[in-house]
């Protein structure tokens, strides 16, 4: 009996720290941070399209974030009564820029083109991303791309599964 207990103890002594180490090395999820408080829900409720702000989504690889100048296209005039709005206007007047937080980052050796998926494959934003009409801020990361997922979809849609299609 004591023998068995001792063996369990040994296993615990070895395995628990190992597990802890393993857990500590696993990737931790970064908290969502957008760099500037803004509500996707409210913007989309005003019949805005995603591409109004993410202007690169149809023509380039990165969907891109708006510059403050883009924001000022509408926000030059007060839009509603959000107390944060004047401060944004002040920043724009100073020539400041918002450093938007990127929620999704692909591995550095992976190429992903929004243009190819949105314009050529006619995919919708919601096919991969969260539905932003319901929430103010997305949770990070809102998609977790893995190669199997990409390849499965490419196979299904008869898109290229050549390595060079996505690797750079």
């Amino acid at each position, binding site marked *: 009996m004591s*023998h068995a207990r001792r*063996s369990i103890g*040994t*296993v615990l*002594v*070895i*395995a628990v720290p*190992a*597990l802890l*180490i*393993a857990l500590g*090395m*696993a990737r931790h999820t970064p908290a969502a941070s957008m760099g500037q408080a803004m509500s996707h829900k409210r913007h989309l409720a005003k019949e805005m399209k995603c591409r109004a702000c993410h*202007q*690169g989504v149809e023509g*380039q*690889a*990165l*969907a*891109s*974030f*708006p*510059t*403050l*100048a*883009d924001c000022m296209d509408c926000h030059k005039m007060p839009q509603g009564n959000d107390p944060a709005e004047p401060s944004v206007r002040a920043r724009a007047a100073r*020539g*400041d*820029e918002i*450093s*938007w937080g*990127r929620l999704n*980052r692909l*591995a*550095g*050796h992976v190429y992903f083109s929004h243009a190819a998926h949105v314009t050529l494959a006619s995919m919708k934003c919601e096919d991969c991303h969260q539905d932003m009409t319901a929430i103010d801020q997305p949770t990070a990361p809102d998609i977790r791309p893995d190669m199997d997922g990409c390849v499965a979809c490419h196979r299904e849609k008869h898109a290229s599964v050549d390595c060079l299609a996505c690797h750079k």
Partner: protein
Amino acid sequence: MKRPPRSTEPAAAASHLGRRELLGSAALAGAALLGCRPKKDPYRIDKPPVPRVPGWRTGEERWVLSTCALCEAACGIKVRVVEGRAVKIEGNPEHPVNRGGLCSRGQAALQALYHPERVRSPLRRTGSRGSGQWKTISWDEAIGEVTAKLAKLRAAGGPERLVLIDGETGTLTHNLWARFLLAYGSPNHVGMGSTGSAAVELDTPYRQGLYGWRADDLERTGLLLAMGTDLLASSGQAMHLQCASRARRPRVICVSPRRPGCRVDEWIPIAPGGYGALALALVHVLLRDALVDSRGFEALPGAGRTPEETTQVTGIPAETVERLAHALAENRPALVASDGSVVAASNGLSTAIAISALNGLLGERERLARVLGTVRMAGWPAPTVDALAAARRAVPRVDGAGTAACPFGQSRVQALPAAIASAKPYPVEALLVRGANPLATLPGRQAWAAALQRVPFVVSFSPWLDETAWLADLVLPESLFLEAWDMVWPAAVTDPPVLSLRQPVVGPVHGTRQSGDLVLALAAGLGGSIGSALPWKRQQDVVETSFPPQSMAAIKEKGAGRSVCADDENCKHGLGEIVDLESTTPHEFAFFARRIASAGTRDGTRSSEAAAGSGLPPWEAPRFSGDPLQFPLHLVPYRPAPFVADGAHAFPWLSELPLVSGNPWPLRAEINPADAARFGVADGDEVLVESSVGSCAAVALVSDGVRPGVVAMALGKSGVVDLVVPDEDRLSGLLAWQGTRVRLRRAS
């Protein structure tokens, strides 16, 4: 049945232990495997913490047109800028100089732009000269300091004691500095001499009697006789020659002591300094065999030389010369083109005249080429020059160019150290150096260092802390060409000639300022007539207002374009005072001779005493420095394809170019197998090359691409310039780069 012994029982217990260990080690192995996962994505391009460039969206990219500045050719470039950072330079396909091509230098320019050793703000020397102790100061402070000094110097009545060494020509900025010196009252705007553009500049004025650069119709040329080591690979003409002759490649015969790096139809090895003699011999054959129309060439000195007589100077057999002359006559239109290395000899002017005569005799230069006149600004008012400036501008130049010592010279930078050291004709009180590093790129390093020590006030505008800047009192780092506005006259002149726009492709990476802004700030600081001579606020305004708006719009769209003058009055001061030789009598060589005789230099006033009675200087044989017995070989310094005159260290890729073979970094001494056998040197040996003034270590490269009796060494790496004896052509004032004798031995 007897049971086996009980040895299995404890064994079972033991195996239990084994299992426990197994479990534990498996867990450990799992943890270790997890630990092996790369913690950081090694493929991520983490841009350094450069502040976000305002106005750029993520992933946004633009292409910005500009003009390269790494040689005098002024190729059009197209820069890919992503999120405000330049990531790739390509040739501008719309640009008439390079038509989309771009050589290694232009491609590597981003390395210089983002180089970690760039000077990031003005520096003031705190320790003794050369001690390397610097203090960072603000731009206002730096400019204030320079203006105070210059104002003091002018107030003391000696504005001519200000000297500007300017490594740049053919740009609006250069003209701004010239205007600044004009208003300030100093004649001493000194160029950098013959490795760069000055030698090319000499080409046309002395041959055609005009100041400006030639435009050759390369698409029609049937035979190109290319003279010199660099013409086809690295000269200011190279890119244009190569790009413009794409469609119908002419037959190319190259004459030089070193085989050019590119494919030519024939290579004729020639002794250094022998180009003029070859041209005269060709003229002789052309006249003797009545292959050409000979009117007007009676006055050509030395024209009676037969190929046999010149063999000793050129090292080319007479029958080769005969064959070449007939080839020139048969493959018309034929063109003789040459580079800076051809005239960088003690008989430079003679050579230029002889080559020009050959071209004139062939009668093709005039049909193939049009020569530009001097370029002035359309929108620039005549400069205000006060009495002091007008008076002091007239004193002889400190480098002696244009005086009896150097009648046809425009600039004689190699005479500067001696002039400063002897304080004759007058002492130099302030020295400004921009776009140049004379200490490292000109021979006589020791003399230069001593001279710089004697000048009380030295300002360097170098973007690097180079050898010259190291000895300066102030370093005011100029922006690099990718961060600056300018307008450039390409040295490789196209037909029709164009202006090439330079605009910032990125904002200043560090706190540097454009050279034009600096000179404007200096002028504004000095005020008075100087301030009103340069009335603009910014360099950008100068660029945008100096040319007619419709021309400017076209230039901005394509990166280069022709400036059109609206009326005669503007044209007088404007661009495009084009003298078309077709409208003169093309075959009348006297036209050229008269020009030389009457107007040897730019203003035609100071050279009258020097002009020889016959109208032309007599033919000269080349002269070499060093005892032929002691120094049996000729040094041929050449510009390799990736040659950058200044700041070569900032382009590691150019140094790593695998053009020769193997390890690309060390300096190579290229010699003929015959000489290698004579001096007991094998390929790859460490050798010592010595001249009468210096020595340098190199690695031997034994190659039959070098003429016997010659050591060819690439310029741009330190060491070669130390070998060169600073002799010069006494008429043109050009440094005789090709006039040094050396010896070579294995390093022990």
